[in-house]
């Protein structure tokens, strides 16, 4: 049921003692767990909202494209410039393409893309769903025999989960282009030679782990934005809070996931 006014015990709702705060934290965790289970249930059960998922995916991609292009290019150029000074000390500037490719593909591109999507798309999802909640648009959808969870939440989470990996690949490519430009101007390396060297140290496992990481980040951004927006309260103030909270929570979770995933994926590499 969409309204869910009973989900938080009223005694805990307004209290400000440590006990109340801990109580609220665990209730939120439990509620989030239910929200996530509902997502997986609704995502796999018909009817499917393919058209809306495609529309949302297009929206997510388009919204982030310009800023990802700009950021990616700058990251590539700056990272190359910073790395060159260190490598010069060892006379190892020929390693630049490989070093940059490894750093970009394995760490920078997924992380930076995820943070950009969290800021750009996560806040939008939080504000949009929050606004729909406080203006009763979600209730209106429900009473017109449409499942708002499937239409609004499932499609958005699917879209971010699908689009972040694509955006990561795009960003890695743009960053490498920026890096190539800098390397070409300083070391006169040709385009094929740069990319041949760059991809020498990148293997299939790296690509697979980037895709896994990116999909997890995308899922996190979508889930945080949808959960917070879908449960927005307190009128227009709640909408602003939802947008803000979506970004903060997404970024926080992305950093934690980065730390955990890097351990898991590095451990998994020895079996590959």
């Amino acid at each position, binding site marked *: 049921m969409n309204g869910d006014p009973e989900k938080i015990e*009223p005694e805990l709702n307004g209290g400000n003692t440590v006990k109340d705060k801990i109580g609220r934290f665990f209730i939120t965790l439990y509620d989030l767990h239910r929200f996530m289970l509902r997502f997986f249930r609704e995502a796999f059960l018909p009817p499917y909202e393919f058209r809306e998922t495609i529309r949302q995916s297009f929206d997510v991609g388009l919204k982030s494209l310009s800023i990802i292009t700009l950021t990616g290019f700058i990251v590539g150029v700056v990272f190359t410039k910073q790395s060159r000074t260190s490598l010069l000390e060892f006379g190892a500037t020929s390693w630049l393409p490989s070093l940059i490719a490894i750093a970009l593909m394995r760490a920078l591109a997924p992380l930076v893309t995820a943070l950009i999507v969290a800021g750009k798309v996560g806040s939008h999802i939080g504000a949009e769903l929050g606004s729909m909640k406080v203006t*009763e*648009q979600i209730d209106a959808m*429900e009473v017109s*025999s*449409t499942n708002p969870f499937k239409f609004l939440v499932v499609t958005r989470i699917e879209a971010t989960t699908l689009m972040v990996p694509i955006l990561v690949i795009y960003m890695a490519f743009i960053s490498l282009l920026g890096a190539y430009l800098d390397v070409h101007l300083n070391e006169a390396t040709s385009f094929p030679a740069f990319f041949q060297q760059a991809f020498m140290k990148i293997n299939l496992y790296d690509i697979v782990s980037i895709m896994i990481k990116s999909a997890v980040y995308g899922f996190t951004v979508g889930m945080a934005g949808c959960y917070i927006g879908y449960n927005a309260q307190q009128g227009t103030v709640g909408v602003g809070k939802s947008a803000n909270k979506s970004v903060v929570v997404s970024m926080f979770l992305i950093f934690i996931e980065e730390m955990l995933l890097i351990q898991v994926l590095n451990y998994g590499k020895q079996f590959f």
Partner: protein
Amino acid sequence: MIKKETPHIDRTETVIELRHLRKSFGALTVLQGIDLDVFRGENVVVLGRSGSGKSVLIKLIVGLLKPDSGSVRVFGEEVPALDTRALQTLRKKIGFSFQGSALYDGMCIKDNLAFPLVRNKRNLSRKQIDQAIEKVLDDVGLAHTVYQMPAELSGGQKKRIGIARTLILEPEIMLYDEPTAGLDPLTSIEINNLINEVQARYKTSSIIITHDLSCAKSTGDRLVMLVDGQFLRQGKFEEVFDTADIRIRGFYNYNFILDN
């Protein structure tokens, strides 16, 4: 104001039946033992002060909230006991006009109106959908707004489109939540007339939630007065206010002062 046509009310058929309905939010008891029958073709107005639980009542009927105890039966079906699929099927017969209109502000009017139709009648062709939109917009007198966005409409127009969006599924029951709230007196009269036209044209049974006496008087076939979570009196407009009960007289006098 257009005079309300004498409705055809079938008192042998109850479309909504509430029994001993109770609802609380934490320590706040909103409804305490509500009993109500709405007959086919009848417009029932629920009058009461802001915060008296009027909106909660219709949200219970449409299954947006669950009662603490008591029975909510719509077309003989116990609403709180229905599973999601059965509830969705039942909701196709119920139109809900929200206080703030609740138009999807990311969609133009045409898409707003097409939304419930596309989702509930998946076999309709594009042409049939367009025809249904055209008809329902004509019925609410806003055919020219078809490609406008909700933000471009006035409060009264939004209310009309909100009603049109529910009418497109040709519901048998209409639930109006404060249909004239926030509107100027002339626009309120237009909305009241529209409610009566909907009753006559679509043969709907309705519950109209309001604190506006002119709305209550011009649209209601029967009024019920909700005070402190209970129905104090019911009957025709004059019957309800023909009392010495200060809680009802006070409500009437306050509205009378405002209207004059």
